[in-house]
């Protein structure tokens, strides 16, 4: 163990370098974005399903919607409360959530999710 000093010094430098990104970015994490609701969405209070479900499962819901509408031709969604909605991303979802930048993009950017819905579906039926 003649090189004890060198080894320990090397280890300290190695650990410092490896953990550099962690302590350098400490406390600088981007804040979790809050999805902003439009006045219309606030007034409606509930989405087609409960808010918790929509937050976690909206992508599955939209996936099922697109298959049901395109493939089965069933275009009306009746939720557990008996309310009916036209199954349409642009015409139903974005009718209330007409602030795509603050509502959709804020979270998608934070989560680094890049859905390609908007390659075809019109982003903002009302304001564009």
């Amino acid at each position, binding site marked *: 163990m003649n090189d004890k000093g060198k080894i320990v010094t090397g280890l300290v430098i190695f650990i410092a370098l490896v953990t550099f990104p962690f302590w350098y970015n400490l406390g600088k994490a981007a804040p979790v974005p809050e999805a902003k609701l439009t006045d219309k969405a606030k007034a409606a209070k509930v989405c087609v399903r409960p808010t918790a479900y929509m937050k976690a499962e909206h992508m599955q819901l939209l996936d099922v919607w697109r298959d049901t509408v395109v*493939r089965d*031709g069933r275009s009306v969604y*009746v939720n*557990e409360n008996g309310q009916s909605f*036209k199954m349409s991303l642009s015409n139903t979802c974005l009718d209330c959530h007409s602030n795509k930048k603050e509502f959709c993009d804020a979270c998608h950017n934070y989560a680094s999710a890049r859905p390609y819905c908007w390659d075809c579906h019109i982003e903002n039926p009302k304001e564009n």
Partner: protein
Amino acid sequence: MMENSRRNFLKVAGAAALAVGAKPVVDAVAASAGTGHAAPEPVAIKDKEALTAKNWGMVINVGKLDHKTVEAVVAACHVTYNVPDIAFKRHEIKWIWETEFKHAFPSNPNKYLSEKLEHAPILVLCNHCENPPCVRACPTKATFKRETDGVVMMDYHRCIGCRFCMAACPFGARSFNFVDPRPHIKTLNKQYPTRMKGVVEKCTFCVERLAEGKLPACVEASEGAIAFGDLDDPESNVRKLLKEHFTIRRKEALGTEPSVYYIV
């Protein structure tokens, strides 16, 4: 002692594995027992207003169509569905368009044609064949024949842009988006999506309009020259027209059984 402890170990391990494995089952049973009175599951249904048929078909009365009406019909369709207007011929997108008799019906090669018919504008579109070759060619089932109403549909979400369907279609009814179509759309209909670069598109027999109880856009714009109805219903408007008039279909000999008939 050695044997005894191994036996005990296996017993305990077995019991523990059983307990862990059974937990989800027990949970599921408990959950289903607990939600006996919960709200019903959401369902997807058809619109009450929706027009339905077993086999949608179209009868085009060629004699009633002049160039002006044809242009109005094409414009009505292309505006409704955000069909781009691309000047470069090889990138052109069309859902419904005008052509000449000799191009629409190349297998009816009469040497001398009536002058009226020779120059008449013939409206051509996807024939929504009963036996669609495009559907057989599609490797992803992005294009499919809807069993419920006989419409040959496109699911752009699934289309991988291989263009096998375009090679298979004997009517040239399909167009490929070689470029991003958005910049070429003159008036954007915000109620309907556009397409993206790399997918094939075509006429949909206006299934979205039928689902809302409206007739196809071309039928509405045609001033009575195009009839639309159920080919499987002997009492329907289209079947009545087919009984009364002599009609032809495009490239009938190929056996695709087009659903678009022409009164000539």
